[in-house]
C-alpha cells in the first residue's frame, strides 16, 4: 500500500516532519510512506494560476497515485498554517487531487494542545465540496509537547503513544479499504503486498521479516516434520517423502498465500544457481519485501488478475537468461476446496530442453514465422516481465 505523507509545515525545523519520518521508518511493514514537502508551493492566488507549476503538479501526481494521504499539521493561531492551506487551495481549484481520497490527520505541537484546533479546522476544510477528501473519523493523533517527545534518534519515546499511533494507522489501512468499497473502485489498487492482514492460516506473533521466521513459526504451531505421516488428497506420505517429491519437480516452485505472504519454495539449488533465486531467510516475508519497490505495481497487477478470477494463470517469458534457455514464469492461481482464491503457485521452468527433446523425438525443425506473435507477446506481457525479472534479480 502506498501512502503520501504531507509535511504540513514549511519551516526548517518541524516536529510534524519528524513525526512523519518516524511513522515512515517505524511502520514500514504496514505501508510505504512517501514524504511530501510543501515549501516550494507558491501562495494560492486566483489571479495568478499556478495549478500547472512543477511543485503543485508533483504533489498532485503523488497523491493521485497513492492509496491514501496522511497530513501532519502544525497549528498557527488556532488553525492550519497558511502554507498548508495554500496547497489545499491549489489542489481544489482547477484540479481535485484529494477527491475521494482517504485522509488521516495527525499533528504535533510545542504545547499540550497538540494541534487540537487546527485538526478540527483541517477536517472541515477537507470536507469542502472542492476538496472532498474522505477523512477518517475519530482516531485523533495529537502529539503535544513535541520538543520532549522524541529521543536523539528521532523515535517517539513513550511506548503508549507508539502503540496508540500504531492502532490509528492500522485502522487507517482498513479505512482505505472501506473507502474503496464506498467508491466502487476497481480492486486492483488494493493489493496489500505488505501482508498486513491475516487469514486463517497466518501464524500470528512471529515477525514476517525475521530470517528465522520458519523456525519460529514452526515451533509456534508445533509443525510436524521428518517421518510423520500426512494424509493427502490422495495418498499417504511422510513429510520427508513430500519434501523428496517436491524437490524432484522439474521446476522451481513457490507458494504465496492469499494474504500475499511468501510461505514456501522447493529448495533444490543454492540461490545463485536458481532461475529465480530464493534464499532460505526469505520464507515468511511479505511479497513487498521480496520485490524491489519499482515493480510493486506490476506484482499487484498480476495478483489482482488471479484473485479477481480474470484469469487463472499469468505466464511471462524472462529473456535475461540468454539464448540457450527459454525461461517462463507461470503464476497460477490456487483455490481451496470451496473454490476460494488461496494464493499463487509460481513455477519457473526452462522450456528449451523440453522443446529440443520434442524436436529430436519427432524429427521436426523449427521454422521462423514472420507473422508470429512473438514480438507482440513480448510486448503484451512486458508488464509481467518486469515483475519477474525484478523478483529474480533482487531475490
Amino acid at each position, binding site marked *: 500500500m502506498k501512502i503520501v505523507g504531507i509535511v504540513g*509545515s*514549511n*519551516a*526548517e*525545523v518541524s516536529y510534524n516532519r519528524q513525526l512523519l519520518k518516524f511513522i515512515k521508518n517505524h511502520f514500514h511493514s504496514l505501508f510505504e510512506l512517501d514524504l511530501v514537502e510543501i*515549501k516550494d*508551493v*507558491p*501562495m*494560492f*492566488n*486566483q*489571479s495568478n494560476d499556478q495549478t500547472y507549476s512543477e511543485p503543485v503538479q508533483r504533489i498532485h501526481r503523488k497523491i493521485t497515485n497513492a492509496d491514501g494521504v496522511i497530513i501532519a499539521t502544525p497549528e*498557527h*493561531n*488556532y*488553525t*492550519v*498554517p*497558511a*502554507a498548508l*492551506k*495554500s496547497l*489545499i*487551495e491549489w489542489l*481544489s481549484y482547477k484540479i481535485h487531487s484529494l477527491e475521494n481520497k482517504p485522509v488521516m490527520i495527525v499533528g504535533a505541537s510545542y504545547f499540550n494542545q497538540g494541534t487540537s*484546533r487546527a485538526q478540527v*479546522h483541517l477536517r*472541515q*476544510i477537507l*470536507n*469542502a465540496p*472542492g*476538496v472532498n477528501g474522505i477523512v477518517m473519523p475519530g482516531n485523533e493523533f495529537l502529539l503535544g509537547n513535541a520538543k520532549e517527545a522524541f529521543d536523539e534518534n528521532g523515535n517517539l519515546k513513550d511506548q503508549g503513544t507508539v502503540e496508540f499511533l500504531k492502532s490509528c494507522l492500522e485502522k487507517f489501512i482498513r479505512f482505505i479499504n472501506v473507502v474503496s468499497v464506498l467508491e466502487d473502485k476497481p480492486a486492483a489498487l488494493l493489493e496489500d503486498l505488505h501482508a498486513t492482514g491475516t487469514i486463517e492460516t497466518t501464524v500470528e506473533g512471529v515477525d514476517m521479516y525475521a530470517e528465522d521466521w520458519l523456525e519460529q513459526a514452526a515451533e509456534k504451531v508445533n509443525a510436524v516434520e521428518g517421518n510423520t505421516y500426512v494424509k493427502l488428497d490422495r495418498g499417504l506420505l511422510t513429510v520427508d517423502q513430500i519434501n523428496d517429491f517436491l524437490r524432484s519437480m522439474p521446476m522451481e516452485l513457490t507458494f504465496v498465500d492469499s494474504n500475499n505472504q511468501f510461505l514456501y519454495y522447493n529448495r533444490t539449488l543454492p540461490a545463485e544457481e536458481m532461475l529465480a533465486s530464493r534464499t532460505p531467510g526469505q520464507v515468511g516475508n511479505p511479497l513487498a519485501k521480496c520485490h524491489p519497490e519499482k515493480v510493486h505495481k506490476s506484482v499487484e497487477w498480476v495478483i489482482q488478475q488471479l484473485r479477481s478470477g480474470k484469469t487463472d494463470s499469468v505466464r511471462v517469458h524472462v529473456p535475461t537468461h540468454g539464448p540457450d534457455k527459454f525461461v517462463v514464469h507461470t503464476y497460477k492461481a490456487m483455490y481451496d476446496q470451496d473454490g476460494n482464491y488461496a494464493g499463487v503457485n509460481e513455477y519457473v521452468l526452462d522450456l528449451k530442453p523440453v522443446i529440443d527433446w520434442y524436436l529430436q523425438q519427432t524429427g521436426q525443425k523449427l521454422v521462423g514465422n514472420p507473422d508470429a506473435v512473438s514480438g507482440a507477446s513480448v510486448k503484451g506481457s512486458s508488464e509481467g516481465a518486469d515483475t519477474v525479472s525484478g523478483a529474480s534479480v533482487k531475490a
Partner: protein
Amino acid sequence: MVKIIGLVGSNSDHSTNRMLLQFMQRHFADQAKINLLEIKDLPVFNKPEDKKIPEEVQIMAEKIEAADGVVISTPEYDHSVPAALLNALHWLSYGIHPFVDKPVMITGASYGRLGTSRAQAHLRQVLEAPELKARVMPGSGFLLSYSLQAFDEGNNLKDREEVKKLEKMFTDFLSFVEICKQLNKAYAMNKKEVENFS
C-alpha cells in the same frame, strides 16, 4: 475622526471583498476614515528562525497599531479563511502583536448563498489565538451573498436592506470601538503575556 483599517482578505485582482470595503470607505466617509490594506505579495510565512519580519509586514503592523479598529473582509475558500489572509495574520503575530485588544469587525462576501459564514467562524477563532488576541465584535458578522450581483455600475451595494444592515452594524462597531477604549485595564498585561508567549 475614528481611524479604521479595512483589511482586504483576498489577494485576487478581482475581489468583491475589496469592493465591499471600498463601498464602506465611501459610504461611511463622514463617520470614519477607512484606509484599505492589501495582503498581496507577502512572502509565504515559514516561521523563520531569526524571527525577521518582512518590511511590508512591519509597515502594515504600524498602521494597524495606529488605528482605532480593523474591519476584515474575508472570502471563503474550502470552507475556511483563504491561505493568503492566514498568511498575513501569521506574519502579523510573529514576534509583533498589533492586534492585541484591537476592536475588529468581520465582513465577508461570497459568490454563493452562504456569504462566507464558515470562513467567518474560523476567522473569529483565529483572531482569539494568544498571539493575535483581538477583540472581535460579538454577534454575527456581515455576510454578503451572491456578491457578483450585489453591486451596481457605480460599485455601490444595490440592496437597500443590505445597506441598512451594514449601516447599523458599522455604527455598532464604532460604539464597540469606544467601549473597548474603556476596557484598558488589562491591556499592558495582555501585551506582556503575548510577548512572553512565543
